[in-house]
């Protein structure tokens, strides 16, 4: 299978070329279509910045990036995104929120009115898949936090994006809801097979969901380790209590501590 996303030695600097903040440093990452990639790292390491760079929303400072064989220069137009805040539109009901991308994406917008019924059926099927079918006509504020995240995932997938970028989508949820949504996201992924990049600080989330987990260092963010957790899909939630899984969590945990230490060592070092 051909490599779908190919990122080679990219760096990203905020602000001025001199004196700005170097957020990403020499990151390389390649993956095939349909893969589930996770990036974990300490808070503020530039994980979200990496997603912005991959989506093309923020220009990289150096390095090359190809998606589907094409060099990326501006925002990609095929990406689904989901964030920690559900960012649903309160003046639309759940179904209308899920339909939003179809009104915007180039290939759909002109036919939106004509094919509305068809689109609605698709949206309802997605909502069904995440267990929100009865809430399709409800207002956003009638949904719980977990339900809003489910709706957001549907919105990110309705236009069948080839690339799904998730920025800590479950970060603000309680532990039970979060684990429930891991299963929901896995089901969505197995059903629709989008290529996913998930950014998170939750090691278990990353290992449970992803084919491959990359560990990022503290700022300037760079990859320091890579792990594969092999297990047949769909993975049952109980797997997170298995020995192999727990061992890998511990190992990654240690990696993250290592990744953090250079920064803290720098802080405590005497001024030169």
């Amino acid at each position, binding site marked *: 299978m051909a490599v779908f996303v190919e990122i080679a030695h990219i760096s990203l600097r905020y602000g001025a070329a001199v004196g700005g903040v170097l957020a990403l440093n020499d990151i390389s990452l390649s993956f095939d279509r349909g893969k589930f990639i996770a990036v974990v790292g300490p808070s503020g390491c530039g994980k979200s910045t990496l997603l912005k760079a991959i989506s093309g*929303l923020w220009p990289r400072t150096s390095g090359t990036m190809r998606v589907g064989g094409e060099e990326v220069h501006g925002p990609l137009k095929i990406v689904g995104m989901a*964030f920690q805040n559900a960012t649903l539109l309160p003046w639309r009901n759940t179904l209308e929120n899920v339909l939003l991308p179809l009104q915007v994406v180039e290939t759909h917008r002109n036919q939106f009115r004509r094919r509305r019924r068809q689109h609605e059926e698709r949206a309802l099927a997605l909502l069904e898949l995440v267990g929100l079918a009865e809430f399709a006509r409800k207002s956003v504020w009638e949904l719980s936090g977990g339900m809003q995240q489910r709706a957001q995932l549907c919105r990110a997938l309705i236009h069948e994006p080839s690339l799904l970028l998730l920025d800590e989508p479950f970060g603000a949820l309680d532990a039970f809801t979060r684990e429930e949504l891991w299963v929901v996201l896995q089901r969505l992924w197995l059903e629709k097979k989008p290529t996913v990049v998930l950014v998170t600080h939750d090691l278990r989330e990353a290992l449970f969901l992803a084919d491959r987990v990359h560990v990022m260092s503290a700022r300037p963010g760079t990859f320091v380790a890579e792990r594969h957790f092999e297990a047949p899909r769909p993975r049952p939630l109980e797997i997170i209590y298995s020995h192999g899984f727990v061992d890998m969590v511990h190992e990654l945990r240690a990696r993250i501590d290592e990744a953090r230490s250079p920064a803290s060592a720098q802080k405590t070092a005497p001024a030169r």
Partner: protein
Amino acid sequence: MTLQRHMPWIAVVTLFLIWEAAIRLFNIPPFILPAPSALFEALWKWRSEIAGHSLQTFLTTVAGFGIAMVAGMAIGVALGSSAWVYRSVYSLLIGFNTIPKVALVPILVMWFGVGAVPAIITAFLISFFPIVVNVATGIATVEPELKDVLRALGARNRDVIWFIGIPRSLPFYFASLKIAITFAFVGSIVSENVAANSGIGHLMTVASSRFEVPLAFAALFVIALMGVLMYVLTAMVEKRMTAWSVRGTHLAAG
């Protein structure tokens, strides 16, 4: 709950009763402060004149307000969505808004002559500013994540404004319309006061020069009535258009 519902009327009637009682109790002459009974008497006596002038004022105000609704929305969208426009126009707008609109009326009269046109323009000028500021705020404060969601779908700037900015700023817009409509009345009446041959403002000037104090008060009463009427109308439209922003609060039931 039903009593609470009727409180607006009860409050108005109570005010009039206290006013009437005070006039009689302290024996205040009608050329200083007429009693409500005298006010209503004048209202009845001059009903056809008052009706004609009110209609004139009402139409000029609504015309000016209508222009302000459209222009305010357009300028607000431009200001809120472009940092360039914002930087170049905002201080100009504030400076202009600081100019008392009464001072402009003589100039408008020189340009357009005595009549409805200066009144419409004054009503517009005085009422469009709060609309602009509110719409611009609503649009400028769209969550960045939401913009990213759309831009990652290939959305252009105007899609972000159309699908998010404008709906999001509607509650701000209608809130500002409630302020703007009362301002618009101030604008048209001030202009009629200074230079017009008809309208409530003109009627008041005439009435006070003839010491017809009850008539002047009757005119004031009609202005207040029209203001409340338009306010209620705007509030009703607001309630229909932006029900999503008030959730289940009872405040919306006003």
